[in-house]
C-alpha cells in the first residue's frame, strides 16, 4: 500500500519498484493470452501505464498483485477481442507433428521440449474455438489448476460465471478434440 501511495504522489522510484516487483506476475498473465514476446511486452507495458493512472482507485483492500492481475487480464482481453478467430477446428489445421503427437501421446511420461512445443501449438489451435474469456477460464482452471475463486478474483467475474464459462469451454474443446481424434475414421 505504501508503494502505491508513494507512486500516486508522483514518486518515480516507487513506481519503478512496482514495475520491477510485479512484472513477472503481469507477464505471466499476459503469457496466457499471447505467445509472442513483443505482444506480451506491449500488454505488460500498457498494464503498468494504466495502473499508474488508476492508482487513485486502488483502495488498498486487496494486494497490489491482485489488483494488477485484474488490470492485466482486462487489458489482455481488450487487446485480444476483435482478433480474427478460427471458426472451427479442422483436420487440415493440424501439422504433421501435431497429428503424430496426437497419435502417440501418453501424457504420463515427462514430455520433451519438442513435445511441449507441439502440445502448446495444439492447445492454441483447440483454444481458438473459444472466446477469449472462455479461453482464459479454461486455461487457468485446467491448465494452471487455479480454483474457481482465484479465476473470479483475477477476472472480476462472479464464481458462478466462472463455472459456467469453464463448463462451456471444456465441452467445446472436448468436442473439437474428439473430431480431431476421429479424423482417421472419416
Amino acid at each position, binding site marked *: 500500500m505504501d508503494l502505491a501511495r508513494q507512486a500516486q504522489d508522483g514518486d518515480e522510484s516507487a513506481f519503478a519498484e512496482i*514495475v520491477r516487483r510485479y512484472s513477472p506476475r503481469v507477464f505471466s498473465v499476459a503469457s496466457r493470452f499471447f505467445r509472442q514476446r513483443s505482444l506480451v511486452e506491449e500488454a505488460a*507495458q500498457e498494464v503498468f501505464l494504466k495502473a499508474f493512472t488508476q492508482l487513485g482507485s486502488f483502495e488498498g483492500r486487496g494486494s497490489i498483485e491482485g489488483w494488477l492481475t485484474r488490470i492485466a487480464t482486462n487489458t489482455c482481453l481488450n487487446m485480444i477481442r476483435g482478433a480474427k478467430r478460427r471458426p472451427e477446428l479442422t483436420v487440415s489445421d493440424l501439422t504433421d507433428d501435431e497429428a503424430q503427437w496426437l497419435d502417440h501421446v501418453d501424457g504420463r511420461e515427462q514430455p520433451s521440449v519438442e513435445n511441449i512445443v507441439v502440445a502448446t501449438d495444439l*492447445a492454441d489451435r483447440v483454444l481458438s474455438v473459444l472466446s477469449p474469456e472462455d479461453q482464459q477460464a479454461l*486455461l487457468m482452471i485446467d491448465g494452471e489448476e487455479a480454483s474457481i475463486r482465484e479465476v473470479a478474483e483475477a477476472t472480476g467475474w462472479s464464481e458462478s460465471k466462472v463455472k459456467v464459462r469453464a463448463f462451456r469451454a*471444456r465441452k467445446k474443446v472436448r468436442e473439437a478434440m474428439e473430431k480431431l481424434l476421429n479424423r482417421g475414421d472419416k
Partner: protein
Amino acid sequence: MKDKHIIDVLDNTSIASLSENELSEVQAHARECVSCREAYEAARLIGVVLQSRAQTKIEPSPFFQTRVMAAWREEQAVDSVPAMLRLWRSARAVVSSMAVTTAALAALTFMLPAQTTPVMDQRASMLSAESVIMGSDDQMTYEQVLSTIYEDDDEAR
C-alpha cells in the same frame, strides 16, 4: 458410475482434479462405453495440452523496467503541457491555413472593383414563343405568325 455416462463429469471438471476413486470409476466406464471412451480420451488430451500451454511463460527482459519508465516519463511530459496548448499545437497548421484563405477571400471581396453583371435584356422576356421560332425581334400578331407558317401551304394550294 459404471453404468452412468461420464460426459457430464468430464465437462464439469478437469481429469487432473478427479480423485483416485473418481478417476478409476470414470476409466472403468470408459472401457465399456464407446462414446464415453472417446470423450474421456479427448478430455485427457485436452488436459495434457492445456498444462503444456500453461507452462509456456514469457519472462520480463532486463530492459522492461527501463522501457516502462521511459514511456511513463513521456506520458508525464505530455500531461504537464496544458490541454489548450496541446490542442493548439496539433491544430496549428489547419487553423493557420484557414486564416490565410479567409484573409485572401476578404481582400478579393473588398479591394477589387465591383463588376457589373449583365442586365437581362428586358425585351427578351417580352418576346413571344412564335417570334422566337421565327427569329424575329419584332412582336408579331397572331395572324402574321399564321400567315408566315402557312405561307408555303398557300403557295402549294
